[in-house]
């Protein structure tokens, strides 16, 4: 069978002149290096260029984080744990803590983060003396000089949109998926309202029962909701379910 490219390789004896070509390359290189600085990178002192969106260890922008726990659930190696911290500004809040020793640098936490608080930093030198030193608490996760390039954006398109011919409406799960209430199952315990990290759930009184006590039902603020599913998971009667928009 014919090889389209490999057959072009000359089979006459003059091909041995390629030796001269390497002499020419070497000679060119000698002149070049005497005039320019060497190409060797002296690693610990100078480093190779890497883009800002390089997937190194995960980073956290503390003020943007709402503590929804999506990163904890999407992490394939379960290296993220939500811990309670006593912040000077925000008070007692829940923030992610990353065990970098187990992290596989997949960047999922940054991709799925609804508020873009998790970022992928270009930091790759992560040696530590102990295993405990590899567990980064929320303050260690901060990265000096983070910029927009380090955020990972999820520009998904709805299949129904594409079938209609709409191609300029990028969405993702935190923008369109919303919890739906099964009214018959709800007991009005208002745990979902307490659990919601962004305060999108409000308990409203819809009526009175036989004993004269108010019946409460959650009302979801669609604009505030980030589809973190915390209300779905805390619900004791499985009355809530996430409704996916496709």
């Amino acid at each position, binding site marked *: *069978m014919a*090889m*389209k*490219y*490999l057959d072009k*390789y000359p089979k006459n004896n003059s*091909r*041995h002149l*390629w030796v001269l*070509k390497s002499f020419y390359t070497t000679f060119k290189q000698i002149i070049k290096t005497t005039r320019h600085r060497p190409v060797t990178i002296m690693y610990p002192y100078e480093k190779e260029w*890497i*883009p800002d*969106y*390089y*997937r190194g260890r995960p980073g956290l922008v503390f003020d943007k984080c709402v503590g929804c726990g999506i990163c904890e659930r*999407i992490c*394939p190696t379960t290296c993220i744990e939500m811990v309670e911290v006593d912040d000077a500004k925000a008070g007692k809040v829940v923030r992610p803590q990353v065990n970098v020793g187990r992290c*596989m*640098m*997949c*960047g*999922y936490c940054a*991709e799925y983060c609804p508020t873009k608080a998790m970022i*992928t930093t270009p930091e790759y030198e992560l040696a530590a003396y102990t295993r405990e030193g590899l567990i980064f608490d929320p303050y260690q996760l901060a990265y000096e000089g983070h910029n927009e390039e380090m955020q*990972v*954006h*999820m*520009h*998904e*398109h*709805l*299949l129904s949109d*594409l079938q209609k011919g709409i*191609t300029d409406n*990028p*969405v*993702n*799960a935190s923008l*369109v998926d919303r919890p739906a209430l099964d009214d018959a199952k709800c007991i009005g315990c208002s745990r979902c309202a307490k659990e919601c990290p962004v305060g999108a759930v409000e308990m409203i009184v819809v009526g009175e029962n036989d004993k004269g006590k108010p019946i409460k039902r959650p009302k979801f603020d669609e604009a505030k909701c980030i589809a973190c599913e915390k209300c779905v998971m805390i619900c004791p009667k499985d009355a809530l379910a996430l409704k*996916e*928009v*496709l």
Partner: protein
Amino acid sequence: MSKMWVTMGPQHPFSHGLWTLKVQVDGEVIQDAEPVIGYLHRGWEKECENRTYPQIIPMADRLCYSASMTWSHLYCKVAEEAMEIEVPERAQYIRVIADEICRIQSHLMWLAAMGTDLGNLTIFLWALREREWFLDLNVKLCGQRLTTNFPRIGGVRNDMPYLFERDLMRVVDLFEKRLWDIIALTDDNAIFMSRMQGVGHVTRKEAANLGLTGPSMRGCGVNFDVRRDDPYMVYDELDWEVAVCDDGDSYGRYKVRIEEMFQSCEIIRQAVAKMPDGPTRVKAPRNVPEGTHVARLEDPRGESLMYLVSDGTDRPYRLKVRSPIFVNVSASKRLVQGGRMADVPAIMGTIDMCLGETDR
């Protein structure tokens, strides 16, 4: 009179990874051989049953370090078939480009390893130097060199970054020139040629019976390529040729791989020219409807296949991987039989072993 079993591996320069080849030698001629694999078994398939569908993509990268893009692509392909979603056209082109980058760098890794097997360190250095460009392209495209984690169920992670096409065309143009230098280093080398030609001969019929796939199969004259004969993504819209060689020996397999690198450059060039604008990712549902699905594609090493059984939840019930090397290494007895002891690296090197996907 004195037949002897010699165990080569698991720590042996010729075994690229952890595996053992037991060979029975009569003097210097090999009578019998038996591959022993399983040193790298990690329970990959079982591990997948515990993870949600998006979480498996970075795990699929770890099946093979030099073919990470094609393995995660294959996983996304089988999941898309199960979810019945169609990938946007731009994402299909980006996937084809990413796959071909992966194919070139995988073949270069093979060439480098082959060079050291035969004692030629210049091939190793030159091939790895050129491979570095393609790894840099990977960094530009998705932020990591080897574990790319780039395809997603329903598209790709991100669109091509700013000026990526320019860098891609520069690398491809320069690489094609440099590849001729590497060919000059091998084809004009009498030692390389005499060690590669005529060893590890397999006929076309035997290759079919042994189940060889990929460059090992095309090196014996079987004209089959999943990219052309069962086209996925946009391979049928691009104009390229399948590299086939009738030799059937180690040198034939070498020729097929070199030719494939040229063809990959051609595919990349056409895909960049034809690429349309548009969305790159479709929102995938969380749960997969009940059923069984199969997808296959052309890995750098052969035909890889994934079989997915889903039970309607957000985790797969079973995910079976058909690794091309698992099948190809079973042909090692036929390949090395009748050869010399010193030819074993030259023969088994052309199989392009990868143990991560073999043992899983």
